[in-house]
């Protein structure tokens, strides 16, 4: 319990540090959106319009500490202001709609590649030099070392365009509205296959190799020999003794990956025009949309912290040795 409280304190501190950075970083960049827009209109706007725009965007000339306090207050109340690129939608709405798709895509891809990769790693190491162990790692490393955008574009071209097996873009078929129906669900699923599939293809090798290597070093431990000598069944030795210990480093890696689900799928979302957070972030950066950028960065930070906390909790269950720490 004390461990959990200490971790929570640490995460609160990390959160404060990151929102503070989040506040100062964009302000260190030259220019602001209003002047950018002013420049785009090449002098056809008069100063009064600029002032009106600045007011609408919430840009002010107030002292920095004042702005900082206002910022803290609005962050804590979930008010990130209005998006500039999606004006006049509030940032929070933009994030809410796109985050959902990113979470679906990211977590499906991550969970599948983690689970399949880990299980393959377990069996590969258990039957070392068997066919799983000799065929898969080189093959997966091969697919994993393709440049991702190339692989994704190739998949899009072949499966989506040439053979027309899978939809080309978006998260669900145009014309359907988000609802709890079988048709909508199926549409989401078919739209998910290519983006998630390509991510899985490039990331699964890493999970498998990581698990396989950890497993091989655990298998040479004395407690595995003792478990064998105890006459336990192969299944029990493989899972409760070997994999249970070997998966600890993988769980850490999983937590890190989980945190980056929110931000990670930028290229995927771009290639497959998937309406997620990565896509919004790209738009925000292009259009100097500070409020949206800040909002998304904040979401990413929050996601990383929450994911880390979840992993801490899982770790607490998995490894009794951290409980005393």
């Amino acid at each position, binding site marked *: 319990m004390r461990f959990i409280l200490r971790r929570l304190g640490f995460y609160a501190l990390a959160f404060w540090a990151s929102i503070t950075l989040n506040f100062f970083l964009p302000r260190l960049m030259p220019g602001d959106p209003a002047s950018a827009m002013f420049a785009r209109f090449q002098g056809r706007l008069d100063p009064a319009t600029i002032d009106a725009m600045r007011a609408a965007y919430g840009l002010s000339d107030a002292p920095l500490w004042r702005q900082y306090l206002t910022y803290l207050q609005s962050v804590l109340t979930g008010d990130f202001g209005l998006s500039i690129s999606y004006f006049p939608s509030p940032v929070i709405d933009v994030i809410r709609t796109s985050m959902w798709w990113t979470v679906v895509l990211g977590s499906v891809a991550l969970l599948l590649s983690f689970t399949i990769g880990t299980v393959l790693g377990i069996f590969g190491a258990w039957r070392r030099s068997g066919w799983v162990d000799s065929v898969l790692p080189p093959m997966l490393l091969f697919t994993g070392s393709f440049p991702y955008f190339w692989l994704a574009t190739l998949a899009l071209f072949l499966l989506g365009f040439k053979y027309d097996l899978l939809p080309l873009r978006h998260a669900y078929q145009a014309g359907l509205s988000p609802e709890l129906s079988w048709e909508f669900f199926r549409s989401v699923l078919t739209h998910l296959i290519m983006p998630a599939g390509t991510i899985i293809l490039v990331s699964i090798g890493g999970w498998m190799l990581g698990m396989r290597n950890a497993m091989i070093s655990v298998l*040479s*431990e*004395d*407690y595995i*020999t*003792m*478990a*064998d*000598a*105890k*006459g*336990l*069944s192969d299944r*029990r030795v493989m899972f*409760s*003794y070997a994999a*249970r*210990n070997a998966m600890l480093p993988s769980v850490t890696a999983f937590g890190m990956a989980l945190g980056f689900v929110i931000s990670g799928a930028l290229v995927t979302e771009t290639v497959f025009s998937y309406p997620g957070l990565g896509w919004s972030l790209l738009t925000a950066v292009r259009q100097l949309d500070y409020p949206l950028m800040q909002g998304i960065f904040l979401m990413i930070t929050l996601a990383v912290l929450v994911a880390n906390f979840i992993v801490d909790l899982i770790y607490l269950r*998995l*490894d*009794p*040795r951290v409980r*005393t720490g």
Partner: protein
Amino acid sequence: MTEPLLDVRDLRVEYKALRGSVRAVNDVSFQIMPGEVYGLAGESGCGKSTIALSILRVLNPPAVITGGQVLFKGRDVLDMNDDQLEQFRWSEVAMVFQSAMNSLNPVMRIGDQIADAIQAHERVSDKDAEERSVELLKVVGIDPNRRRAYPHELSGGMRQRAVIAIALSLNPPMLIMDEPTTALDVVVQQEIMMQLRELKEQFGFSVLFITHDLSLLVEFSDRIGIMYAGDIVEEAPSSQLFDDPQHPYTWGLMHSFPLVHGPRMALTGIPGSPPDLLSPPPGCRFAPRCSLVMPQCSTSRPLLTPTGNRRNVACYLHEQGRPVTISPLMESRGTVTV
């Protein structure tokens, strides 16, 4: 005469290496009677742990058993299929491993590690298994409440006791102890050995006791086998072995460490080092280091031969049933004084 509990015949274990195979256990035979403590001693790498692991067939590759028989109560362990083997392990022969530090699963409670050994062999409810683990922990002198502890929460000595509790969980007729106290300090070592002696009285199991600590060995064993480079070179009741060693290697071993009790003597080492097992000497594997070497020693291998008084030795100095006292011979030769 009673049947031996364990009868190892011409056991051969090889390690497959890239440059060829290493015969780590070279046609070794020995027997252990019910209730007997058989000590196996020799320097590191002579094959004693390999023998222990072969009996339970838990050798890890590249080690492979390539010949011989391991008869336990008359059944050949090497012929068993996977199911029979799983049943045989632990219920007939359990093992206390070298380092208690590493032989417990770090993410599993001590009590569960006892219970899963029980439940792998008997249809026992979780509750009954837990009750038995409480009993076993009491037997080895651990507070039963500690069954919920994880290995890292126990001291080295307690961990080794927990391992012993696991070993006793099915009340097996035989226990293999592979250097059970090497990783512990002398005080704890003494405690554990005394406890093992008591447990042996109480449960009556036989022991295959493996160590390189000769004083411990003499104290604890009924009969001792001395191993050198994969061979058992001499076998004798422990009371006789060091009074009258018959193999030059045993003599050398004995004169490599000081005795706490007994007469003062000059310490001599054994010159040279153990042979490269990739290309062992053709005859007696000890011949190149032996100060009493004879021409026939480097051409043919002496076999373990009885020399009377329940003793066996593999050395051409002795003829069957007619042992020679080698101490004066050894002392007159120019051995290296340390």
